């Protein structure tokens, strides 16, 4: 009962934190970064996808796209609520930035972020019509699945629980994308679809972050990461490739 243990060693041994009061400053900062990255990516992703709803070729597709927009916004809100316990004003946060803003399709920003939000680099590129959006959604959807599996184990319990609730919803988005892409493949235009795969593949791959991240160790000690960027990317590459193979498309 009276044994003393530092929070650092508690975390390094797999302990979890449960409320803002017992979160140390550097942990708080990394946790906030993790949360803002997710929220910004979901809000930017939903905003970009909203523009594509009307491009859906049929009512089923438009329903699927609208559902994805709704649910991604809702998922952002779940994590915003966790941020709220740290004093963040969620309403203000959700409106502090133009989430529809995009760079040029040819902009080359690697894995870097823009100055004013933390969305993953991939969400800075514009979608180019319906089939391009479906391809992006499939590749990114598979990436999110890998990331959700990782982040459902973070050491901040309220966030881990939010991600556990979000994971199956995001997984369904990737399934919808796969159904959509199957339909598009059956309809022909394999070249156009392959061009979209070639465009998005390296950009989604880059969203896993640099392979030589110097942060990996300290994040691991805080229990905010289990796997390295490279391990997650490799996992995604294998899974996404299997799906593309099935559809007769080539991975990048």
């Amino acid at each position, binding site marked *: *009962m*009276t*044994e003393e*243990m530092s*929070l650092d060693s*508690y975390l390094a*041994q*797999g*302990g*979890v*934190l*449960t*409320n803002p*009061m*017992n979160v*140390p*400053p*550097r942990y*708080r*900062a*990394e946790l*906030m*970064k993790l949360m*803002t*990255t997710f929220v*910004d990516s979901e809000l930017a992703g939903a905003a970009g996808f909203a523009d594509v709803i009307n491009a859906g070729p049929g009512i089923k597709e438009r329903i699927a796209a609208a559902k994805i927009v709704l649910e991604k916004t809702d998922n952002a809100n779940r994590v915003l609520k966790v*941020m*709220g*316990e*740290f*004093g*963040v*004003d969620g309403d*203000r*946060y959700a409106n*502090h*930035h133009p989430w529809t803003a995009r760079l040029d399709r040819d902009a080359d920003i690697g894995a870097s972020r823009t*100055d*004013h*939000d*933390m969305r993953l680099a991939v969400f800075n590129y514009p979608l180019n019509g319906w089939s391009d959006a479906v391809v992006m959604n499939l590749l990114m959807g598979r990436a999110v699945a890998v990331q959700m599996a990782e982040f*459902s*184990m973070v050491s901040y*319990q*309220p966030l*881990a*629980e939010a991600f*556990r609730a979000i994971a199956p919803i995001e997984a369904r988005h990737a399934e919808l994308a796969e159904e959509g892409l199957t339909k598009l493949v059956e309809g022909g235009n394999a070249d156009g679809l392959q061009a979209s795969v070639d465009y998005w593949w390296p950009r989604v791959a880059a969203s896993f972050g640099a392979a030589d991240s*110097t*942060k990996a160790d*300290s994040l691991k000690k805080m229990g905010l990461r289990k796997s390295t960027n490279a391990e997650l990317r490799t996992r995604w590459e294998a899974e996404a490739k299997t799906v593309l193979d099935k559809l007769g498309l080539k991975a990048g």
Partner: protein
Amino acid sequence: MARFHDLEVTDIHKTIRDAVVVTLKPVNGAAEEFDFTQGQYLTFRQDFDGEELRRSYSICAGKDEGILQVGIKRVDGGAFSTWANEELKVGDTLQAMPPMGGFFTALDAANEKQYLGFAGGSGITPVLSILKTTLAQEPNSTFTLVYANKGVNTIMFREELEDLKNTYMGRFNVIHVLEADAQEIDLFTGLVTEEKCAQLFKTGWIDITSVDTAFICGPEPMMLGIASALRAHGLDDAQIKFELFASSQPGRAKKKAVSKDAASGANQATAAITLDGSTQTIQMPKDETILDAALAGNMDAPYACKAGVCSTCRCRVLEGEVEMVANHALEDYEVEKGYVLSCQSYPVTDNVVVDFDQ
């Protein structure tokens, strides 16, 4: 954002020598805000020598008792808990934020579940709230509590737990594990460690194979040991709910030291910035933010929105003065302690010392 409300102390009594149970009544029509879920906590604030201190304490009342009650155990050197134990009295007003926390699972009268709770010392408070509510609302569920304490005389809510055993005969069981006092059964003496849990499972005191959900609240080493025993016996992370209790809350903050050499007019400032244990001294113009200066110095300073909204970039000013032009995230008490949003803060004095590690 959550705000503080006034609560009146309507009852206060000792449960053991150095722990009080405080009953609170929201005033000014805030009752609805304090409609809690079992296992949640309240965050209080109180001034001590002109400095605001915040402390969280778990609600120990069950949902169906119709009262709001927290248990506060005195910790050595703890300003708030000592004050609550020695000076707080009926009729006093406390300020608290509405209940927060996710240390619970959804209840359903139709459930037939087996719950397992582990509590260490004052970690009993949220677990008590959970077990009382669960037993009342799920007539077909059972609850087993493993309760670790130093000795018999430090067991909080001991009589109340005995009463609950009688009320919910056959559905509620308590195993007291005492560190110092010998008991009839050897297994119930010592610390609740991973090995102790494994023995409790092996000897049949706890049927781990039928457990649906486990709740753990106690000190860090105890939580780690129990969690790893549970995982080794087939529970997954979604079935294990943790609440890390108050021992780990940061201690009292020191006053910020203001360096006496005031601004001298030139546009340049010297900033000593500490991050991850190392300090860099950076020359920077006074029209640049602390965050940008740190980033320009190749420091991996944390930030996200750069708009003063998210508070990721929070740091603490130890010396000198900065001007924070926008702040939508930090609360007054944090600002008083010297915390600033580095993305919104410009040096005013020629020398500033800031720390991202505090």
